[in-house]
């Protein structure tokens, strides 16, 4: 006993001497003391050193403890300097500086055993848990949760009682419950299982799963009950997420189809070039971003009216030159506008590029809204849904409450009578077609944020858009909205068990069969306007 004390003392002095002889003048007494303790290569002494460092406020303490835990802590055989030797660059732990190349033979590994490892883990967690920044504390607590053990319980409880930040406090509380799950006394375990009921953190499920087959029937039963309620909650959240995905897909469909609902539904014109008008809108976004590279966050807003103008004017041009001559012959407009779509596609290929062009997302579009640990909603999808509803509202207002809207409806219901009442039907036709096309352009802006922008962008949406309009009922904006959203949701709910392609096929078959049942769509037009 006394002999060992003597050796210890001697070693301590020796360590001090060696340290003094080296240039490490800045090392603190605690560090020096710890270094000496490590030197003795005894587990007890190492533990003492760990205690020493953990309670100190040494800047490198945490790194050292982590190195020790990972088995990467080495001590120089002569200078006793502590270093982190790993696959990466060796590090002098007293200063935190890189050491450059070292000879590993000069170093001795600081030994460690399992008891010590366990001890270390709790100490390391404790170190960051004491950090003054609540964000660091939260990160440390979250990190700690994965390796939590019942030994940490007293420490966690103490921290939780002192904690002021609510988020950290919640995380600590979760930690306490998780740790209690592995406790040895049954009441604590049962209470923890009860408390964790309905918690969505995946760790909770991981910890509860083995307990559900516990030898103690009471614990097993409680764990199973908790797990079941968690699973229910998770699947509910998954359904909400699918619903949300479906709604966002549906909004895209609505956005792509709503312009078509005007040209096809209100005017009876089958515009196969509608997809290409969407494409033009997407390319307008691209060019505006190129013109204003420094205002990425605002250029998207600017692109909306610009795309409306570009596609709208193109639409008016198409109407004046081609469609004007084909009113009342819907099948012919289908062919002529299909020709126009080929020309527009090839025009973009020739003038811009046959490849896709890069369109960037503004910063406010990225990121997601985290509702809980299994459900988060990305902002770009959220914006698309909101944007679609906005466009829909504006369009409904335009058609219902304005003079133009009144004229459009009049001409679509009875052209001859409208003309007799003094409506300039040719002008109304051009404006309606321009409006529908402009909306296509706006849809293009939105789509540029979601998919690749290339010459084929329009083609991939045109058929889906027609399905939406036909499904919803021609001449009915509400029908388009309901049809688009429901097709989107149906598609997303089918996808998990049928796969994306089969889901698409099933939706198409569903529409084909639906049209047999209700040839005029979900909301058929009534009255005279419904006549063939």
């Amino acid at each position, binding site marked *: 006993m006394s002999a060992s004390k003597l050796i210890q003392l001697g070693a301590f002095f020796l360590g001090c001497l060696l340290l003094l002889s080296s240039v490490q003048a800045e090392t603190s007494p605690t560090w020096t003391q710890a270094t000496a303790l490590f030197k003795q290569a005894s587990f007890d002494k190492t533990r003492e050193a760990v205690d020493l460092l953990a309670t100190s406020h040494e800047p490198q303490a945490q790194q050292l403890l982590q190195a020790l835990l990972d088995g990467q802590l080495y001590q120089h055989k002569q200078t006793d300097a502590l270093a982190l030797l790993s696959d990466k660059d060796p590090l002098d732990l007293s200063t935190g500086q890189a050491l450059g190349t070292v000879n590993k033979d000069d170093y001795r590994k600081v030994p460690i055993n399992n008891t010590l490892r366990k001890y270390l883990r709790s100490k390391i967690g404790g170190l960051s848990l004491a950090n003054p920044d609540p964000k660091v504390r939260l990160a440390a607590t979250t990190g700690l949760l994965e390796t939590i053990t019942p030994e940490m319980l007293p420490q966690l409880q103490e921290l939780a009682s002192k904690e002021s930040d609510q988020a950290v406090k919640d995380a600590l509380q979760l930690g306490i419950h998780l740790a209690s799950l592995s406790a040895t006394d049954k009441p604590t375990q049962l209470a923890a299982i009860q408390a964790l009921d309905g918690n969505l953190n995946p760790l909770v499920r991981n910890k509860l799963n083995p307990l559900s087959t516990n030898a103690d029937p009471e614990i097993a039963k409680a764990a199973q009950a908790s797990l079941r309620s968690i699973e229910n909650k998770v699947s509910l959240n998954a359904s909400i997420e699918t619903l949300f995905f479906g709604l966002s897909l549906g909004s895209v469909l609505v956005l792509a189809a709503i312009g078509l609902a005007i040209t096809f539904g209100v005017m009876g014109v089958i515009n196969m070039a509608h997809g290409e008008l969407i494409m033009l809108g997407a390319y307008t976004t691209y060019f505006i971003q190129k013109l204003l590279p420094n205002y990425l966050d605002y250029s998207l807003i600017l692109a909306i009216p610009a795309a409306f103008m570009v596609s709208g004017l193109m639409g008016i041009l198409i109407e004046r030159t081609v469609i004007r001559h084909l009113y009342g012959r819907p099948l012919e407009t289908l*062919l002529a506008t299909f*020709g126009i779509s*080929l*020309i527009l596609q090839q025009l973009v290929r020739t003038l811009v590029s046959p490849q896709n062009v890069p369109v960037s997302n503004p910063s406010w579009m990225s990121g997601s809204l985290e509702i809980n640990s299994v459900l988060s909603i990305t902002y770009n999808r959220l914006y698309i849904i909101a944007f679609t509803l906005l466009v829909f509202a504006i369009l409904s207002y335009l058609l219902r409450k304005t003079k133009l809207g009144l004229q459009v409806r009049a001409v679509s219901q009875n052209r001859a009578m409208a003309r007799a009442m003094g409506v300039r039907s040719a002008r109304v036709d051009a404006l309606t077609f321009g409006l529908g096309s402009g909306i296509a352009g706006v849809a293009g802006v939105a789509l540029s944020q979601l998919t690749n922008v290339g010459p084929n962008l329009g083609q991939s949406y045109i058929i889906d858009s*027609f399905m939406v309009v036909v499904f919803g009922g021609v001449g009915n904006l509400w029908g388009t909205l309901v049809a688009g959203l429901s097709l989107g949701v149906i598609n997303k709910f089918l996808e998990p068990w049928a796969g994306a392609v089969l889901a698409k096929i099933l939706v198409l078959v569903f529409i084909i*069969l639906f049209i047999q049942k209700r040839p005029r769509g979900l909301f058929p037009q009534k009255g005279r306007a419904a006549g063939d």
Partner: protein
Amino acid sequence: MFSQILKNDRGGQIMLVVLAAVLIVVPILNLAVAETSALHIPTYLVTLMGKYLTYALLAVAVDLVWGYLGILSLGHGAFFALGGYAMGMYLMRQIGDRGVYGNPELPDFMVFLNWKELPWFWQGFDQFWFALLMVLFVPGLLAFVFGWLAFRSRVTGVYLSIITQAMTYALMWAFLRNEMGFGGNNGLTDFKDILGFSLQADQTRVALFICSGLALALGYLLCRYVMNSKLGRITVAIRDAESRTRFVGYKVENYKVWIFTLSAILAGVAGALYVPQVGIINPSEFSPLNSIEIVIWVAVGGRATLYGAVLGAILVNYAKTVFTGLMPESWLFMLGALFVLVTLYLPQGLAGLWQPLKTKLGHKPEVAA
């Protein structure tokens, strides 16, 4: 009998005479004339012409429903492709153990997918007669079921066009799936021989060319025969005044279904002749663009004339071959312009140009005839 069928069909008479001449001359110029001779027609040209002839038959099928029945089908590409797949499956089985994996029973792509045995729907396709039956049966059945559902529910006009397009589109996605067992994206290809004759041989190619020509002629005569009959006159009545025809007491749906099914079968036959000549069938044949292109062939040639469809299909495809070779960039511009100009200025198609000419000449023919 021919004279009965082709009475009042000057265009058809001319077309069939030209076709007969081509079917006789081309094989001779290919097989009997020395390769060094200026008159020799190389085999690839024979195959190209054979391909045009299958397109012409497809166009006749579309003209039957669009021109005479007033249904703008955007799904005939699908019937064509289904006929093609049925033939492709036979040709695939004919490969036998000469595939890359050398499996005598399974086509290469199934070996690749680790399938152990032939799926049930591939059974029987090693027999030529069975494949031929399927060429007629599969497109016919699909058209019958689809038409029966659609016409009974009185889905008409644009709606019908759009759901036929939906059908093609759905089939395209379906055939793209590997699990469907039709070779997925790559489709069926690497065919070796048909009925024991090598597909690479000149003689086989010429034979296929002649078959295509005969199929076109027979298909044409059949359509003309149907249109001359009472059924044909009811068909036209349905096109021009569907409600009135129904009120007069005809079961409009039934007539529509039968004409639609007949048309689909003709399209399937065209597809079956097309596949051995081009050597591949894949899901891109189902693409909606293809189906719309067929309609423009008919529109260019002239609706409701039948011979116009033949003329349109051959001319447009010849132009396509020439221009995609010379200026690939410009072809889509031209095709697009063709769509627009024909619908705006040539609603009767090229055959429409011939009509006034005929009436102008109409003062004298009594003497000439």
